[in-house]
């Protein structure tokens, strides 16, 4: 290594020796669970070509009674063909000329090599995240083929039942995991072996009362407090924590398994003789009162009377047409029309956390394809810098979506977003 850098004038261009070292650092030294457990690296000699794969599905059915000399029901099979390409990517580093003349320069160079390795691995980790969440949904396929009737009703019921599930049920994670296992098993998939989720979701597993009761466990409790309640495996699944990536300039790194969502609620009751409505408010974490005068002033311009209501162009026609009657109803005057008050709250914002459960590996799920790596050395005499460019083909692909189940989402940490209420969401799609 030292020789080649002292002789950079003759080593310009592609350098296979350095390339092999960097490749080795990426594939062997990083030990990223995303490219080892979930979608492991698979080297391709010719990554330029199109990657194609076929998925055959043989549905098992029940035999039915058949009269003599009649045709038996034919079992159905499906074949789906997919294809994709790897993507050429690259990074470069530059150093001042003569950097190898000092020990600091050599150390700096070593760190820059590690920086390249870490950056490329980080990019590949992100690709694995994206491959998992954008993989075709086998659940959707099953739904479209077999659960055509009444699916909507069931989906809506599931949505309610699993909403805020992790926060509302102590055993929610266990239920989700076992539910997913049986779901994947029902699809003919193999037993899952990893669970990828956000760090915050791991709190649910590690910070239960049993695991944080340090006082009651004697010497073990002291050790637990010192080491922390770690969780590498849970219910037979390897826990893989998702990473946050700097995806948007100027904003904090974002976890792909954490997303914003707006959901809605409505409240309804009689308007006549109404004094106030109490609703839950996230800001105060309490039920706050909404007075009838505040409701009235949201319907008309401040200072205007019932007869001087806002025009129909600027508000709901049904309100403007009946504004005087609404006022009478609020005041409870004799013979007033019966109005209902509908309070809509369509933008209750939460952060939702997702989790991915599946069986990782090339044989079951997919792979991170890579190849045609090249570390090329260049020298810019005009600016007095020397540098290296590392380019490679890479693409994480999910070949078999039967082996994975994406739950979107499981849990939301409490956030105070202005006036929005409540905190947690759990919905299965």
């Amino acid at each position, binding site marked *: 290594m030292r020789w080649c850098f002292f002789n950079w004038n003759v080593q310009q261009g592609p350098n296979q020796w350095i390339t092999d070292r960097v490749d080795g650092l990426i594939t062997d030294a990083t030990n990223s669970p995303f490219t080892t457990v979930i979608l492991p690296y698979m080297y391709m000699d010719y990554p330029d070509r199109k990657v194609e794969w076929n998925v055959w599905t043989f549905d098992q059915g029940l035999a039915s009674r058949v009269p003599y000399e009649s045709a038996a029901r034919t079992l159905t099979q499906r074949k789906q063909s997919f294809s994709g390409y790897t993507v050429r990517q690259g990074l470069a580093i530059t150093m001042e000329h003569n950097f190898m003349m000092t020990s600091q320069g050599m150390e700096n160079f070593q760190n820059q090599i590690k920086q390249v390795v870490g950056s490329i691995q980080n990019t590949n980790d992100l690709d694995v995240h994206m491959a998992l969440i954008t993989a075709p949904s086998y659940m959707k396929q099953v739904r479209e083929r077999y659960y055509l009737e009444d699916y909507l009703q069931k989906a809506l019921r599931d949505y309610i039942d699993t*909403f805020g599930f992790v926060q509302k049920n102590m055993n929610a994670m266990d239920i989700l995991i076992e539910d997913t296992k049986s779901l994947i098993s029902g699809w003919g998939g193999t037993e899952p072996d990893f669970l990828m989720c956000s760090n915050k979701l791991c709190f649910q597993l590690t910070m239960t009362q049993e695991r944080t009761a340090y006082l009651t466990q004697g010497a073990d409790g002291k050790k637990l407090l010192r080491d922390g309640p770690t969780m590498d495996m849970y219910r037979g699944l390897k826990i893989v924590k998702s990473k946050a990536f700097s995806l948007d300039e100027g904003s904090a790194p974002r976890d792909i398994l954490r997303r914003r969502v707006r959901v809605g609620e409505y409240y309804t009751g009689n308007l006549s003789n109404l004094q106030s409505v109490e*609703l839950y408010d996230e800001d105060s974490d309490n039920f706050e009162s909404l007075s009838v005068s505040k409701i009235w002033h949201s319907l008309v311009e401040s200072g205007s009377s019932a007869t001087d209501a806002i025009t129909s162009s600027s508000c709901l026609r049904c309100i403007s047409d009946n504004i005087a009657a609404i006022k009478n109803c609020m005041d409870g005057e004799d013979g007033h029309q019966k109005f209902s008050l509908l309070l809509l709250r369509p933008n209750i914002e939460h952060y939702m956390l997702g989790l991915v459960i599946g069986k990782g590996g090339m044989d079951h799920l997919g792979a991170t394809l890579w190849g045609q790596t090249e570390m090329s050395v260049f020298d810019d005499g005009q600016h007095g810098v020397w540098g290296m460019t590392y380019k490679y083909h890479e693409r994480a692909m999910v070949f078999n979506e039967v082996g994975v189940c994406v739950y979107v989402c499981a849990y939301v940490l409490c956030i105070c977003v202005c006036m929005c209420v409540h905190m947690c969401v759990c919905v299965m799609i």
Partner: protein
Amino acid sequence: MSVMKWSDSGVEEYIEKCNNVNTNFDGASIICVPILTEECFKSPMPLCNYQDKGTKLLATSDLHIHDIQNYASKQISCNITREALAQVHKTLQMHNDYQIVKDACEAVGVGETTQCRLLYKGTSNFKFKDATNKQTFGCGHHGHDYVGVAAVRNGKSLMAATAPHINISTVDSGAASKPKA
């Protein structure tokens, strides 16, 4: 908790805030809609424009597209209510310019907020001037955390942790032989 004003500026501001899915929502949270009806409201209530065929885009690109229209009609049978909701949807431009609704996986990739226009019945307490009240419990969609660690994590309660009880019992060996009074 803020209430949207049904004025030009109030509506305009709400539309702007609501259509911005790249940042946290910081618009008004409550929309008041008086409706001349006494029929009950079913939960969930799809918030859509019932007269507009573009309402199909309420759902993402799976089966919901085909089912949601029928479902919406079934959930809200009252014409007056449907008309009012359609007006709310139209006035507040909740159709997002009829853009294709992104599902969770698509939206998270680009950092956008997903929106659900199915409104579920929430917990409320209507108090009337004659000192009566009508309390409605939500359908379970939202609610408090279970009492325990999750609530503690969110800073909502204190964990009930005490030192372990030490039970000291003494046996009076002579008590058994003493005659009861």
